[in-house]
Every structure is written in structure tokens, then in C-alpha cells.
């Protein structure tokens, strides 16, 4: 009985972790390349969630297809935000970028509220699932997990094999050296920011695949906090670290449930947050730069 519950928890933890991982990669990428902390991170996840919602509700477009829409929306938003605001802040003190990205997040939330209202919405894409003896696995969650892995893998290949990908990695290593080699650093910044935002918006679609209800213009806030924890855990600036750390976080949040429940008198779910943060602290004590963090 306990074993079954444990197994179910671990599966759910992994599935959730995949979504968490992708939702954090954008944040890590933007910090890694531009050294900008995007405090408005959650607002972009929310945009992705609403993208999936509207595509499904208005045009009956299944969420998996909405991923394409989300990527386009994300790239467009990323470019616009970079060109108008971020570009001017690259040499500004850190506090300015924190305030600016925070302001951008609030702006997006309020603008969304103006158009979409403050209600909690959702959609039903009922496509069945796998029935295991100890639990049910809806296909939507499996698709979310799978998409996350596919996107992360595609991104990895893109970064290591393509010209632009290598240019971005060069800029991360040595901005001036890259410039002298002929790399247009500003364009690299714009592209990286746009890709980071596109990743974040896309993860919003996956979040709704995982949880198709409770979509609301202020939903981003919870995700921002978790994303920061996961980003630090994975090593700030390493998107791959963030991806792995997402899994660990998902496992801690859900996977530890049954184990914690074994401790008498403990209310497990109330504790999972404590557990996640404690684990974070422990890992940072052992490896201060995070799992895959560099210098």
C-alpha cells in the first residue's frame, strides 16, 4: 500500500518536475547570457497559460498545437521588451533591472486583467489516460512531460550545433572576445532574451496541460518564486541545470509526500515546502554554485 502510494508520488513528482524544469529554463538562460534577473517571470507563464486557454476555447486548437503559437508569441514579446526596455538597462545597476522587470511583470498582469478579466478560467481537454493499478495517469500530463523533454532536447541541440547557438555560448564566455571575432553581441542579447521569454511562455501552455483549471491573471506569482528556487538550485545561468533542478524540485514537492506522511503527527503537504527549501539550502552548502553552476 505504502509502496504503491510512493510509486504514484514519484511518478507525479517527475511529471510535475518536467514542467517546472522547462518553466525555469528561460529564467536561467536570460540570467546566464544577459545577467538580467527577470522578476516578472511569472507573468509570462501566465500569458502562455491564457494562450492555451484562448486557443482551445475560441478555436478548438489542442494545447499541443498551441505550443507553436506560444513560441511565436513569446519570441515577439521578448524582442519587443528587449528593444524597448532591457537594451537600455544592460549597463545599469542591478536594482534598475530588478525594478524594470518587476514593473514589466505587473504591467503585463494588469493589461491582461483589463482584457481578460480577473476570473479563474479553465478548459477541458479530456483525452483519457493510462490506468495503472495504483493510480491514473492522464495523457495530458504525459504530454506535458514529453513536450518539456522534447523542447529541452531541441534547445540543447540548437545551442551546440548551430551558428547562432555557438554565438550565444561565445558571448556568455567572453563578450569582448566574441565582439572582436565578429559576433554582434547586441543581437545575441536580443535573441537570447527572446528565446528565454519564448521558453517561459511555452511552459505556460504545458502548465495548463498539467492543470487545466485555475487559470488567472495573477497565477504567475507562485511560479516566479518556485522558478527562482529551482534556478538557484540548478546553478544560476545554466538552463540545463535549471531543467534537472526542476525534476528534483518536483520530486521533493510531490514525491516526498508519502515518506513524510510516515512520520507520525506530520501534515505532509504543509511540510513539502519546508522540505524543498531545506534541500535547497543543503545542496547549496555542499555546492554553493548550484548543481551545474559554473564560476
Amino acid at each position, binding site marked *: 500500500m505504502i509502496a504503491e502510494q510512493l510509486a504514484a508520488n514519484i511518478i507525479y513528482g517527475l511529471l510535475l518536475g518536467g514542467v517546472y524544469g522547462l518553466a525555469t529554463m528561460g529564467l536561467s538562460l536570460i540570467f546566464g547570457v544577459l545577467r538580467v534577473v527577470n522578476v516578472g517571470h511569472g507573468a509570462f507563464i501566465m500569458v502562455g497559460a491564457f494562450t492555451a486557454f484562448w486557443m482551445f476555447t475560441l478555436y478548438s486548437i489542442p494545447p499541443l498545437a498551441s505550443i507553436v503559437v506560444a513560441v511565436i508569441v513569446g519570441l515577439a514579446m521578448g524582442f519587443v521588451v528587449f528593444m524597448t526596455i532591457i537594451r537600455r538597462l544592460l549597463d545599469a545597476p542591478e536594482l534598475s533591472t530588478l525594478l524594470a522587470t518587476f514593473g514589466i511583470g505587473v504591467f503585463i498582469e494588469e493589461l491582461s486583467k483589463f482584457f481578460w478579466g480577473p476570473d479563474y478560467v479553465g478548459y477541458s481537454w479530456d483525452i483519457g489516460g493510462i490506468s495503472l493499478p495504483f493510480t491514473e495517469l492522464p495523457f495530458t500530463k504525459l504530454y506535458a512531460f514529453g513536450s518539456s523533454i522534447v523542447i529541452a532536447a531541441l534547445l540543447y541541440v540548437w545551442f551546440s550545433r548551430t551558428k547562432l547557438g*555557438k*554565438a550565444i555560448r561565445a558571448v556568455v*564566455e567572453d563578450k569582448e572576445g566574441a*565582439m*572582436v571575432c565578429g559576433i*554582434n*553581441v547586441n543581437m545575441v542579447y536580443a535573441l537570447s532574451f527572446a528565446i528565454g521569454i519564448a521558453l517561459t511562455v511555452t511552459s505556460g501552455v504545458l502548465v495548463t496541460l498539467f492543470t487545466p483549471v485555475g487559470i488567472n491573471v495573477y497565477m504567475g506569482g507562485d511560479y516566479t518564486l518556485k522558478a527562482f528556487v529551482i534556478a538557484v538550485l540548478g546553478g544560476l545561468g545554466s538552463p540545463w541545470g535549471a531543467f534537472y533542478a526542476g525534476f528534483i524540485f518536483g520530486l521533493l514537492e510531490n514525491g516526498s509526500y508519502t515518506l513524510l506522511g510516515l512520520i507520525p503527527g506530520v501534515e505532509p503537504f504543509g511540510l513539502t515546502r519546508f522540505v524543498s527549501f531545506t534541500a535547497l539550502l543543503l545542496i547549496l552548502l555542499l555546492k554553493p554554485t548550484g548543481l551545474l553552476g559554473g564560476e
Partner: protein
Amino acid sequence: MLLKLENVTKRFGGLVAVNKLDLEVEEGEALGIVGPNGSGKTTLYNLISGVYIPDEGKIIFEGKDITNLPPHKRAPLGLARTFQIPRPFGSASVRENVAIGAMFGRAHAGVDEALEMADEYLKIVGIYELRNKEAKLLTPLEKKLMELARALAMKPKLLLLDELLAGMNPKDIDKIIDLIKRVKEEENIAVVSMVEHLMHAITKFAERVVVMHQGRKLLEGPTIEVLNHPEVIEVYLGGRVV
């Protein structure tokens, strides 16, 4: 005329690092720039490669005014440089490092072509066997050679070498000079080599030499003549030499 600097001045606050400098480099030339510490050599290089923009004056490359052009736009025109302390892309492989030069320099190569070019230049420079090693693990000499290969992969018309030979032993210095001379001939590159101390090396390499002092051109002319000029010796040693 490949490169022309007209009346170029660069100030940093109250300090004038480069002062009304005129300079000309011909196609295929082997030029030496020499001067003691603080004479403005590094600033000059940064002005030519575009890291700094001059406060006054003009920089013309192949007849085109590049004074205000950012570095990444000068590279495709045919300008490449090495750094006194090498700047490798540490976590990439040696091969990838050189390929970056091929991709974003004048050759504009695609990824596969660039990797092939990288192999070629690594062989020329003599570190082909290190091609898959992570760049940050190389010895300082190997890093310098890699950076040279990367600069060459940019197919430059003008190559700026910044204290390339500093810290090398005499045998390596001779080898590198021969290598540079060979490539220079084959690919018609104008090579400007900047040194502070290695006069013998400059003598072997450069036909012409410019001596800088306090941001100005002190003297210019055929190498041996200039280097033996009393004024030059005084600037370096602060006194007369017997």
C-alpha cells in the same frame, strides 16, 4: 593603402592615451609597433579593432571610413587581432574556438565548413592534436597558438598581434615568426606586431617599425635604423647607452 589613421586622439578623463596619431599600413606589410609601457600601444589596438571609438580623427580601412563602426562590423571587413593575455572561449573545444573565427569573420562560414577550416588552421599552427580538448585546459603557449589560429580563420586582411611572443622561449619564437611569415605570404595578410621588449624578434619580422611614446608617434622607419636611433634608446632606458 589598407589602413589609415588620421589625427586620431583618445582621451580617458584627463589622460590622453593616443595623441593626434597618424599611421598607415600597406597591404601585405609586416609592421612593428614598439614602445615602452604606457605609450598607448594597447589603446591604439583597441581603436583599430573598434573596442574604443576615437574622440578625434578618422580611421579608414580600404578606403572606407570605419571610425564609428562597432567591432563586430569590422571583423567581416577583414580585421582580426590576438590578445596579450589570450581570451579563449573556455568551455568550448579548441576546434570550436577556431571555428567561431571562421563563422563570424570575413569567411562567414557555415558550421560544418567552419569546423573544416578550423582543422586546417590548427594544422598550420601545429596544435591539431589538441582540437577536441577543452580550451580552458590548455597551456598558455597553446592558448596563444589557438588564438592565432582563430584570428587566421577569420581570413583577415589585417592581423593585429598583441605581444604574441611574450613569454616564449627563443626556439618557439623563431618557429612562430617563420609560421607567421609563411601565412602572411600565402594569404596576403598585413601583419602588425606589437611588442614592448622583444627587439630581436621585431628585427626578424618587421620591415618597418613605428615607435610610440606617450601617445604619440616618436619615430617611424626601417626597423634596424629606427631601433638603433639614440632617441629611441633614450626613451627606453631613460639615458644614453654606451
